[in-house]
């Protein structure tokens, strides 16, 4: 583990206290592959850095590393998918979206191909600067027709989504945390349902609508606030596309004020989707948006950056208090 205050390199997972699972994505992919011979694992020189290694070790013949070539990663995956395979591709979110966007859009989505993209380093989960922080990937991916976009909360959900991706027809984009990923949702009771939002907590004072790892922060913040007598409802929205607008409207209607929380820029992602859903339903609620501003984030240690952009539990507490 690195010392406080220093940028960790792209290979290092952040420290997490408590219960966690190492490489949940790769472990789940190995399970998926056991029952589905058509599943392949592809990467572009980031196998070790995207947690696909447990799969690669279990199925070395079905693991393909195309070198550092993200456009070709996606093009090759499209060819494989056209020919009866189901490729799961990994790289960092920035390179999948920024560099291979056209290939995802045309070679994959336009033909509704079964290409599953598992993208690491969403938002501020690396201190490596704007070149590695996928802060606008959800906005980009949700703009492509027919693509499914998912931002799982924790290890439990990453594993469930890895399984679910095989049953969702077409191109799927998933933002993954890697390394030691916290377990926040109870695997015995929580069930990811494609396209559905889920209420995780009920409180009458404020409603938080969150996605990805921000749901974990919101849960922690809500516990703290409960001690001060502020009761928070939480709606977790792992699926950004398709978006469960009905659930969001029903949830918003049940609280006087809402806060959105996402590990992403506040334009084009969850906050925008919520505003669109409310407007379409003719519903009005005061709204606070937690997320990244419209500027390039810098390098630095992840805790420093999360604090700076209000993504830490403290930041969430502050925003909920209003």
């Amino acid at each position: 583990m690195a010392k406080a205050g220093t940028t960790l390199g792209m290979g290092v997972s952040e420290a997490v206290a408590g219960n966690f699972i190492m490489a949940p994505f790769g472990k789940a992919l190995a399970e998926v592959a056991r029952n589905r011979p058509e599943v392949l694992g592809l990467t572009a020189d980031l196998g070790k850095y995207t947690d696909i290694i447990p799969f690669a070790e279990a199925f070395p013949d079905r693991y393909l590393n195309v070198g550092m070539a993200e456009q070709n990663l996606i093009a090759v995956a499209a060819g494989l998918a056209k020919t009866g395979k189901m490729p799961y591709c990994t790289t960092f979110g920035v390179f999948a979206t920024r560099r291979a966007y056209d290939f995802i859009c045309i070679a994959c989505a336009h033909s509704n191909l079964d290409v599953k993209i598992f993208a690491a380093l969403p938002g501020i989960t690396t201190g490596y600067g704007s070149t590695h922080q996928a802060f606008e990937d959800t906005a980009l991916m949700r703009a492509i027709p027919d693509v499914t976009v998912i931002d799982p909360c924790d290890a439990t959900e990453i594993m469930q989504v890895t399984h679910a991706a095989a049953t969702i027809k077409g191109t799927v984009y998933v933002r993954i945390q890697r390394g030691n990923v916290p377990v926040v949702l109870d695997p015995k009771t929580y069930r990811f349902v494609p396209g559905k939002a889920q209420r995780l907590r009920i409180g009458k004072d404020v409603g938080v609508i969150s996605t990805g790892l921000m749901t974990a922060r919101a849960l922690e913040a809500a516990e703290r606030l409960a001690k001060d007598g502020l009761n928070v409802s939480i709606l977790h929205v792992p699926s950004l596309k398709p978006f469960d607008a009905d659930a969001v409207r029903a949830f918003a209607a049940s609280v006087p004020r809402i806060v959105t929380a996402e590990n992403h820029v506040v334009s084009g992602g969850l906050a925008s989707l919520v505003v669109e859903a409310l407007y379409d339903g003719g519903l009005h609620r005061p709204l606070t948006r937690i997320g990244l501003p419209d500027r390039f984030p810098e390098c630095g240690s992840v805790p420093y950056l999360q604090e700076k952009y209000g993504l830490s539990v403290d930041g969430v507490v502050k925003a909920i208090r209003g």
Partner: protein
Amino acid sequence: MAVTNAPVDPAPIGFLEEKAHRLRRHMVKMASGKGQGYLGQGLDIADLLAALYFYEMRYDPADPKWPERDRFLLSTGHYSIGLWAALVECGTLRTDELSTYGGDGSRLDMSTLDSTPGVEMTGGSLAQGLGQAVGVALAHKLDKRDAKVFVELSDGELQEGSTWEAAMAGRQFKLDKLVAFIDCNGIQADGKLVLDVEPVADKWRAFGWDTMEIDGNRMAEVVAALQWARVERGVPKAVVMRTVPGKGIPTLEKREKAHFVRVGDDEWGAIADELEKTRG
């Protein structure tokens, strides 16, 4: 305009070797105490950096934006530790900044940003450097400027299509003041090169570049390549450099996991000693 660095021949090989050593020393200082870093790559291009910054390039360290300067674009952004060492040694950056490498609020990031003085491009998203170098060289040509453009790229960057798109453009526009150094250190993120890039020199020749292959860790060969690259023959030049990650520190040269070196807190003293001993 005071140009404080410009080639003086015959090349002072011993002086340049000492400069390379000092750059390596700066790099160890930057990485020291941190659990990890891209030290291996910085060490492997120290000889090239010394030869560029203290022999070949015409530039003014006090005025890094001097329009007539020769430029060096480091395409491989995670090699930043090497560039920081060179910029400190030439005086563009301050020595006391070395210890801030990778720290919150530091200008010496783990990956280059062109907001730091002396940095010609933002790296980190790889294989964007050669195309930018083509653009800079083209602008110089249009403006009839004499300045040279040097660009470093890694062997991993040869796997991206954008590198070859730029290679074709460089040749098409007859950029004979453009010189690419390809750092073939044999490794990438997942270990030894996972996708074969050989034969590297033949590929550049096939793309129409004047090409030379050297041991990038031998100063005499680096200098010879720079002198060779001065001759203009109407096409850009590629210098394929064979280098050793961790060069100068045997413990690091032997490391399997060389892409991202992890060093225990107690090992830094020994590493610094090894560097001095190897230099003799």
